[in-house]
């Protein structure tokens, strides 16, 4: 198995331009500017099968092809470095360890879509990463990879960093655009879609940090090389972030389609303290939990969807047999209640209701009927709001109540937690 994303992470100088160049950096940009038409770049990315790494897995080349070619005004790209899906810490790896990879990908993407201005929307809490990024951009300007007439090609491109200030919803692409414009990050109704009406009403494309970081590799080695990694419909490597009750939590670069079981037991060293596995959330807090007997599943879009969950951001949260699933429900429901932006009544009220019901059960005031009510509220939340936050609030609840109904019932009947050694909240 070939590591191409993280190969140089942690090596001396990988963080600086000198190191990146030594490892072959910016060859892809030179190739694109000298030998490829913008539409050829879009085609190459389409052929590679690359799907967005921000959570939804939308085909990247297809998204790029939605951008109008000729326009009479500016077009924009926003790089989504908001990374706020609980459990997710992979974009940080790119930002901290080899930021030029993502920057090179961003410049190539700008060339492909005829964009001259890009914004990197980075979550406000990533102050250290913001400094690294600013430094990396300054170095890219110095080397003439950014600015006017890049490497004598006639192509101009600027990249600016825009710091967020703490709001999960700003990771949603239209909330992100509102936030760049200086407003509350409340998502916009679609249509119109960002490719037609994005930042300041202009055509805009939003992609995740890792999506951009994949691009130079596709250009250097070709679409068919990329298609040869992973599965037929989930191509390339990705960085899985493993957290929770494992011996070796951390970031692991692996091909899509890699086995969840192997990731937990081989790569992440198995369950800590010799305990047994109870459940796994395989793709960040928004996706449905998988009980221990369902983890024999490849980590790709189709397989996880078939298994009743989702690949999401590839953030694998592992829970051992001490874990109280009601408490998991309380923590997650609290998050979505807190992060609902408030503009859609269903999401605002529904997420609060789910949280209230979970807290009631945790505190011993739950009733058996509450379980059907939780499912009812969650089902009616799905698809009921402008953006997918309502769905993200519903899915974890549906997963927990479906797979751990017995435990919830026991908790309600006895009025207390069935796992005496569980984590506390």
């Amino acid at each position, binding site marked *: 198995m070939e590591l191409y994303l993280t190969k140089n992470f942690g090596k001396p100088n990988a963080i600086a331009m000198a190191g990146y160049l030594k490892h072959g950096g910016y060859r892809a940009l030179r190739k694109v500017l000298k030998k490829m038409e913008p539409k050829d770049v879009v085609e190459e990315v389409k052929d590679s099968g690359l799907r967005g790494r921000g959570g939804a897995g939308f085909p990247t080349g297809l998204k790029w092809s939605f951008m109008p070619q000729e326009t009479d005004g*500016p077009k924009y790209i926003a790089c989504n470095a908001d*990374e*706020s*899906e*609980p*459990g*997710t*810490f992979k*974009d*940080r790896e790119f930002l901290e360890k080899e930021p030029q990879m993502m920057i090179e990908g961003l410049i190539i993407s700008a060339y492909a879509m005829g964009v001259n201005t890009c*914004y990197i929307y980075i*979550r*406000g*809490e*990533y*102050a*250290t990463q913001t400094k690294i990024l600013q430094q990396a951009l300054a170095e890219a300007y110095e080397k003439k990879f950014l600015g006017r007439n890049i490497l004598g090609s006639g192509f101009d491109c600027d990249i*600016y960093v*825009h*710091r*967020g*200030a*703490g*709001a*999960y919803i700003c990771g949603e692409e239209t909330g992100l655009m509102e*936030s*760049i*414009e*200086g*407003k*509350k*990050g409340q998502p916009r109704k679609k249509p119109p879609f960002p490719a037609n009406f994005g930042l*300041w009403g202009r055509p805009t494309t939003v992609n995740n940090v890792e999506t951009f970081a994949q691009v130079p590799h596709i250009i250097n080695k070709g679409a068919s090389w990329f298609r040869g990694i992973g599965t037929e419909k989930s191509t390339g490597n990705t960085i899985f*972030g*493993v*957290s*929770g*009750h494992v011996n070796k*939590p*951390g*970031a692991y670069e692996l091909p899509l389609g890699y086995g969840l079981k192997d990731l937990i037991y081989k790569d992440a060293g198995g369950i800590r303290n010799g305990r047994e596995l109870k459940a796994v*959330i395989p793709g960040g*807090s928004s996706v449905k939990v998988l009980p221990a007997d369902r983890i024999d599943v490849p980590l790709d879009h189709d397989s996880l969807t078939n298994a009743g969950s989702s690949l999401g951001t590839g*953030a694998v*949260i592992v*829970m051992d047999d001490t*874990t109280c699933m009601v*408490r*998991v429900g309380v*923590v*997650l429901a609290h*998050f979505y209640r*807190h*992060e609902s*932006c408030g503009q859609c009544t269903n999401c605002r009220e529904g997420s609060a209701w789910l949280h209230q019901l979970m807290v009631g059960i945790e505190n011993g005031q739950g009733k058996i009927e509450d379980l059907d009510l939780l499912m009812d509220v969650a089902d009616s939340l799905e698809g009921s709001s402008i953006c997918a936050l309502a769905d993200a609030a519903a899915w974890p609840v549906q997963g927990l109540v479906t797979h751990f109904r017995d435990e919830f019932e026991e908790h309600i009947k006895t009025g207390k937690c069935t796992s005496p050694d569980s*984590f*506390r*909240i």
Partner: protein
Amino acid sequence: MLSENAKKEIEREMAKYPEKRAVILAALHLVQKEEGWISQDAMEEVASLLDLTPIEVREVTSFYTMFNMRPVGNHHLQVCTNLSCALMNGRGVVEYIQRKLGIEVGETTGDERFTLSTVECLGSCGTAPMMQIGDDYHENLSEPKIDSILETLK
């Protein structure tokens, strides 16, 4: 009042965007860096710099959790209580700091040195439990580690 440097920085930020208003988050970050929190006066000042009404600035300020709408201590301890941290005893971290400093979540110590808050996931789930203090992340926390961190902040 914002310093001259901060005002210059805001000017520079404006060059990045087609509209002034887009620098509001940057301006509020600068205010908070200089003053520790965002007062009504500061919001009015930002509003006048950006040709906005004070209520428009307030609306934005209150939407984003990083902006303190009340004064906080010199060191703002923000402990993550989201799932990956909770699984690794994030609650224990909160309780230990509460005991050690004699304050509850949301409170500031009498000497105004420390404020304790709980926050949602900060992207350190693989190095849980964690807290952020100022710009810095402190990861893989244990009681001795918390002791030594707080020691250096005294």
